[in-house]
């Protein structure tokens, strides 16, 4: 049930969103059409599809078929499937909106239905990597155009006129010569009999005729349900006869259960059963960690029962993981040569000959995702069939893993995707759904596995911990002539393969080997780092430490040379140009480089735009400071200015944040603004508080008291978002993640401006109070 708000009533949010009317050269000049999608292989007109994306290379590629995604009822109701997971980005609204736009459907007559996990049918469903709009803008337009064409053909046949004489307009097909009209509903049956037109012959709408795309006047489809408590998240699924489970997991990742005593737990009112849960050996990929489950009639009883369990664990290979000692190891590694992953010129010699060398060694600890909805899943396994209800970012992957874990065919597994109460990468890993499947199989009943917040903090797939060390060599004029960046951090690959000690290509490509500064001598190194806990994707991934180090170093260079931060930054970015990839086969967020090159003109543009709109250089009161940072990630360009105020006790407030984003062609500027506003909060959280530490292999934090996040009373007073209007044909790029990386370095540059203190170690904590 979806209730769509009257767009004219949406007000209050517009004032902080400003779409800039600036012209920018097209980056697409001269690009040919070479690619295709896996299943449907559309080749569109040059104007409509002048770029190629990496969508076809994702598992199961793209499916372009209106019969799969669109249903039209005789009453005119159009149902559009959302095949990506909604975790707050607005994708459950934006992708169906694209279909409705091209189809000429009236959005008030559209219902959105969530697709279950089936990548053969729907194409890739991994909702991660800030890819949904990027990969689906054109396919969704094609699906809508197909449906529109079928409706037009059906009407033309009914009237006995050529199809070229009729036109779909806002839920009707019109024959203007005779003034005849037929509603979509009246054409439903006939249109369904039409054959699906070939993708290559489809005519897409002229963007100037768009009613919804790029306008930002449509509320999210779940808005009414969310505000009335009807929206259904993973935890809200209830089945007849369903049991409630919580699990005690090994306190050290890779540990095992030695023994347990269930007696006291079984005496807790409401507790029905205590049972072992299968665990997998380290590194365990997305498989469950194992442990002991308490089964009860409600979650409260299960939690109380778990508290009463007596458990003995074998801590296994990671029992000595200690964050204080590990930090020293990373720092030591960063001070010695490591695996060279990028080499231009001779950085060693240039550093030796430099007039001045500035060294910055930056530390960024592990982070937990702490989405507001802790992991949770419901499973109902009967014989060789399994049905799952879960807030998963990867419904297709979940289906595969459930099938493998239970040893049943994938066709026998149904994964129903609920709303996600936040994801941020955590819910790309389906361990919680696998736990529910295993328990349901053993119990012979539907079961809900609920993680508590303590479970979530202690058993996350954490953001990595890293030391980033940059040495910048300057000549007499203050020009940077040498740059050496050593990045040391346990890799996500370690979650999948024992002994993976170096960054994977996708991690190298997030702010290290793609670093765009115009410097003659550059060396990037990646010394070894072993992992002792599960490392995973966290919103914007390796871009967080890399952007922090690079953009903090820009501030350090500005300070050392007595120059303006913004001017220093623009000088380092250098001339407007398409950067030639510094390494062979550079990972480019899975996108073809021709469509999505590193374009320093766009990078400079967001810096200049945010500086202009954010009033860079304005006079600020005593104790205040301005900081700026820019970063390209997920093939988008984004720059942030933070104004900070630090009082005489070292207490920090953020009066104003300004951010400019160039994300190419976009669908919903209102949701872009909300993502960027939220990214500032997440950036401030990680900069001020974010830190997970280990002692004796165990996570030392447990809940929001010791893993703090920003609350409303410390959030920025104002966050302004400026969206660069795309040149015609500019491919869409990421929005969900890119807002995070520039925030923390902009904040630290601002703190330096305000106080003269350079913060190189996150989180900030009490460093200003010392």
């Amino acid at each position: 049930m979806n209730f769509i708000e009257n767009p004219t009533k949406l007000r209050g949010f517009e004032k902080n969103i400003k779409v800039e009317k600036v012209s920018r050269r097209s980056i697409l000049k001269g690009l040919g059409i070479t690619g295709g999608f896996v299943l449907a292989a559309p080749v569109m007109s040059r104007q409509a599809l002048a770029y190629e994306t990496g969508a076809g290379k994702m598992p199961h590629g793209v499916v372009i078929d209106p019969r799969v995604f669109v249903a039209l009822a005789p009453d005119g109701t159009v149902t559009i499937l959302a095949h990506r997971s909604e975790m707050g980005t607005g994708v459950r609204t934006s992708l169906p909106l694209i279909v409705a736009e091209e189809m000429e459907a009236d959005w008030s007559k559209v219902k959105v239905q969530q697709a279950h996990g089936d990548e053969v049918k729907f194409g890739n469903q991994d909702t991660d990597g800030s890819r949904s709009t990027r990969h689906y803008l054109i396919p969704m337009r094609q699906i809508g155009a197909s449906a529109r064409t079928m409706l037009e053909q059906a009407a033309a046949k009914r009237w006995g006129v050529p199809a070229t004489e009729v036109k779909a307009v806002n839920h009707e097909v019109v024959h203007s010569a005779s003034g005849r009209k037929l509603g979509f509903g009246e054409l439903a049956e006939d249109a369904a009999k039409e054959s699906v037109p070939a993708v290559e012959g489809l005519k897409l709408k002229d963007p100037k005729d768009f009613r919804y795309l790029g306008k930002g006047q449509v509320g999210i489809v779940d808005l009414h349900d969310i505000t009335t408590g009807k929206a259904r998240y993973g935890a809200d699924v209830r089945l007849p006869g369903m049991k409630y489970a919580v699990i005690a997991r090994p306190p050290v990742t890779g540990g095992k259960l030695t023994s347990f005593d269930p007696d006291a737990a079984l005496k807790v009112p409401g507790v029905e059963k205590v049972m072992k849960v299968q665990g997998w050996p380290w590194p365990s990929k997305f498989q469950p960690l194992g442990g002991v489950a308490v089964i009860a009639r409600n979650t409260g009883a299960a939690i109380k029962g778990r508290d009463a369990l007596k458990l003995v664990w074998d801590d296994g290979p990671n029992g000595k993981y200690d964050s204080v000692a590990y930090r020293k190891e990373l720092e030591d590694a960063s001070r010695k040569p490591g695996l060279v992953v990028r080499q231009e010129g001779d950085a060693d010699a240039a550093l030796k000959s430099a007039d001045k060398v500035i060294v910055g060694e930056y530390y960024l600890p592990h982070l937990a995702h702490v989405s507001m909805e802790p992991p949770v899943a419901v499973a109902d396994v009967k014989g060789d069939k399994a049905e799952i209800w879960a807030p998963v970012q990867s419904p297709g992957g979940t289906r595969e893993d459930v099938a493998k874990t239970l040893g049943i065919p994938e066709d026998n597994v149904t994964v129903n995707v609920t709303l996600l109460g936040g994801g941020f990468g955590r819910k790309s890993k389906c361990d919680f759904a696998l736990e529910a499947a295993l328990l349901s199989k053993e119990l012979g009943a539907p079961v809900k596995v609920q993680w508590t917040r303590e479970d979530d903090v202690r058993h996350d797939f954490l953001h990595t911990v890293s030391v980033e060390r940059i040495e910048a060599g300057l000549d007499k004029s203050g020009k940077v002539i040498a740059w050496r960046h050593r990045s040391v951090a346990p890799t996500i690959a370690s979650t999948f393969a024992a002994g993976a000690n170096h960054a994977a290509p996708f991690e190298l490509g997030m702010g290290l080997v793609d670093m765009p500064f115009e410097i003659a001598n550059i060396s990037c190194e990646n010394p070894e780092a072993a992992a002792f806990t599960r490392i995973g994707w966290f919103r914007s991934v390796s871009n967080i430490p890399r952007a922090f180090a690079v953009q903090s170093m820009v501030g350090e260079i500005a300070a050392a040379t007595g120059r303006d931060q913004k001017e220093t930054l623009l000088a380092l970015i250098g001339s407007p140009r398409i950067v030639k990839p510094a390494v062979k086969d550079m990972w480019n967020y899975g996108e073809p480089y021709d469509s999505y090159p590193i374009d320093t003109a766009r990078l400079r543009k967001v810096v200049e735009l945010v500086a202009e709109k954010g009033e860079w250089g304005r006079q600020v009161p005593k104790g205040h400071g301005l900081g700026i940072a820019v970063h390209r990630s997920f093939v988008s360009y984004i720059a942030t200015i933070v104004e900070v105020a630090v009082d005489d006790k070292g207490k920090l407030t953020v009066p104003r944040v300004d951010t400019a984003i160039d994300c190419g062609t976009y669908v919903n500027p209102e949701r872009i603004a909300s993502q960027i506003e939220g990214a500032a909060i997440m950036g401030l959280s990680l900069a001020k508080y974010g830190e997970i530490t280990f002692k004796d292999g165990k996570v030392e934090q447990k809940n929001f008291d010791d893993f703090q996040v920003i609350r409303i009373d410390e959030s920025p007073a104002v966050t302004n978002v400026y969206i660069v209007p795309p040149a015609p044909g500019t491919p869409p790029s990421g929005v969900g993640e890119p807002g995070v990386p520039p925030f923390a370095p902009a904040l630290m540059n601002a703190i330096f401006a305000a106080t003269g203190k350079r913060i190189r170690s996150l989180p900030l904590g009490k460093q200003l109070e010392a």
Partner: protein
Amino acid sequence: MIKVKINGQEQSWDGDPDLPLLWFLRDEAGLTGTKFGCGQALCGACTVIVDKEAVRSCITSVNDVAGREVTTIEGLHPNGDHPVQKAWRQVNVPQCGFCQAGQIMQAAALLMDNPKPSHDQIREAMSGNICRCGCYQRIENAVHLASTGV
């Protein structure tokens, strides 16, 4: 047997009297609009109104509310048109939406107590409710809008 009025309806419970109200609401009464976020009164996702006060249902037992009136998000307004709910929609507050029931209940309780809160008072009253997506600017604007007429 504990009796409690939830959204105007009498309910009874003869299980563990210490059961947190949150789990009674969600798992026993089937009112899943109230969310579990932390279990320790740290995040406010489970906020409900008891009589006229916002409480964290995760640390409030069923026994604590015996004979009292509990209002959850489902019972805030019959059509979901409480001024706070309307303001939330006009400002397009939510991202993932998971914390919003708790935020809305907290805001509704604030306005019962202080119909015209200042921005500082809004920030103070709402500071027990975490939004990991970071919708705070809009939350502040929506509470202000609800207090000035939607």
